[in-house]
């Protein structure tokens, strides 16, 4: 196996891109990434996308976007794993380079959520649930998150207010990120007053669906030396899975897939949680953040919420474990199948010291984790710079 480096990145802002189609968003990110390393083409492109078929009636994004971006003829295909599609594409790119079959690849995450609106989008998103046992009853991912959250609050006897620090922290970081979707600051107390979407999940709890495209360029350490002074190495890459239907889980309050993918990635990278300088986790809902922090070893069982105390101080850019450093899904926005690649791009900017106002001081090792559904799929990567 060969080592794999990230050498360049590019992205569109996250938000509502009414004027751009899937292919236009994808091409914009690809061109920015290629320009960042002054390359004109690559050997292959792996596209992460979850809902092109349902939102935009478009499949075959590999060929479609390669053609539109001026890369006609290269190896290109799409990888789907629900909301974890972006990280699945990153893992595919990692395996392609590591195997020796491909020397330089683009990993692109792209999604156009606003092609669908209202109940149509909600239905489109529900293909990531268990069709026979969940969607048929009118369940949505938000409703699943809400039922997990209510049980968590019941078991540990918690009020809604304990979760507000996750949201405050995300928006504090998104506030200084010019590419974020919702840059407003959330004041303490504001969270608990927000209107309910699926109680106890409220408007300030769930992340907004968005449009966007992000690209990273992967290559071997040898080629990386020609392209950049500061390559970021992918030192861990692992996927874990769990049942789609919540009813099939032995323990509703345990994100098994998040645990298994994180620990495999830690082992591969030879790192412990204490050595990780920042963690881009999948904060689609605050309860996902709490359970992820527990499953990945940053908090004990039933204690994930305590890290959000004091307006999320411990999770801030200078906290003990910074999360959502550019605003996370909640404030930067959730361009669904592209999210995992935005996480990689953000970690890359942190490790290369180019995160600007979002910079985590002295960041050397980053963990990123992308979830599909209610953590039915979890994909973790560990990125490292220097030494």
């Amino acid at each position: 196996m060969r080592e794999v480096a990230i050498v360049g990145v590019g992205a569109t802002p996250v938000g509502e891109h009414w004027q751009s189609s899937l292919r236009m968003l994808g091409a914009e990110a690809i061109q920015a990434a290629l320009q960042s390393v002054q390359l004109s083409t690559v050997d292959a492109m792996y596209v992460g996308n979850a809902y092109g078929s349902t939102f935009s009636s478009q499949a075959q994004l590999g060929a479609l976007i390669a053609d539109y971006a001026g890369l006609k003829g290269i190896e290109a295909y799409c990888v789907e794993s629900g909301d974890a599609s972006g990280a699945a594409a990153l893992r595919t790119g990692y395996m392609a380079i590591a195997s020796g079959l491909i020397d330089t690849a683009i990993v692109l995450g792209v999604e156009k959520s606003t092609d669908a609106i209202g109940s149509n989008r909600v239905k489109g998103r529900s293909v990531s649930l268990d069709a026979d046992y969940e969607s048929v009853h009118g369940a949505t991912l938000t409703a699943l998150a809400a039922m997990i959250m209510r049980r968590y609050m019941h078991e540990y006897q918690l009020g809604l207010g304990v979760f507000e620090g996750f949201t405050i922290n995300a928006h504090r970081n998104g506030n200084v990120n010019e590419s974020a979707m919702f840059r407003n600051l959330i004041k303490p107390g504001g969270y608990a007053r927000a209107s309910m979407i699926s109680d106890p999940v409220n408007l300030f709890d769930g992340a907004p669906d968005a449009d966007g495209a992000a690209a990273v360029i992967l290559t071997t350490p040898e080629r990386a030396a020609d392209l950049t002074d500061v390559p970021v190495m992918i030192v861990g890459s692992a996927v874990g899975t769990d049942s789609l239907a919540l009813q099939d889980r032995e323990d509703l309050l345990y994100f098994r897939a998040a645990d298994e993918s994180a620990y495999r990635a830690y082992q591969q990278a030879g790192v412990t949680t204490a050595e990780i300088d920042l963690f881009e986790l999948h904060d689609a809902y605050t309860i996902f953040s709490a359970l992820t922090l527990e499953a990945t070893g940053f908090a004990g069982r039933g204690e994930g919420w305590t890290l959000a105390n004091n307006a999320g101080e411990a999770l801030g850019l200078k906290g003990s474990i910074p999360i959502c450093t550019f605003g996370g899904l909640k404030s930067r926005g959730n361009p669904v199948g592209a999210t995992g690649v935005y996480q990689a791009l953000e970690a890359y900017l942190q490790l290369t010291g180019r995160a600007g106002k979002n910079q985590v001081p002295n960041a050397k090792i980053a963990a990123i984790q992308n979830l599909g559904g209610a953590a039915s799929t979890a994909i973790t990567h560990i990125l490292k710079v220097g030494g």
Partner: protein
Amino acid sequence: MSQTSTETRREKFTFSGLGEVYSFTMLQEPPEDFEEQAPYMLALVKLDEGAMILAQITDLDENESLQIGDRVEMVTRKLTTEGEKGMIVYGYKFRKVLTRN
């Protein structure tokens, strides 16, 4: 299927249809084909035999609340109609166990 397959052997089992609410939510933003019913209550029901099942809670009076631990029983109801002229899908929902006077 070969004899050595690891696939689970299945046998028929009849549940009593009784259980208790393990968790629940009132869903305000429904998917297409469920707009007419919204808002509606979804629950994870722990059946008396031990299995967990997701379903809607039906027959709740306006302003009637649900609590974790409430006793519920299965009933057969229309789940949805697929599109405007589509097939009617029937299935299970749960309601609070009726108290006898």
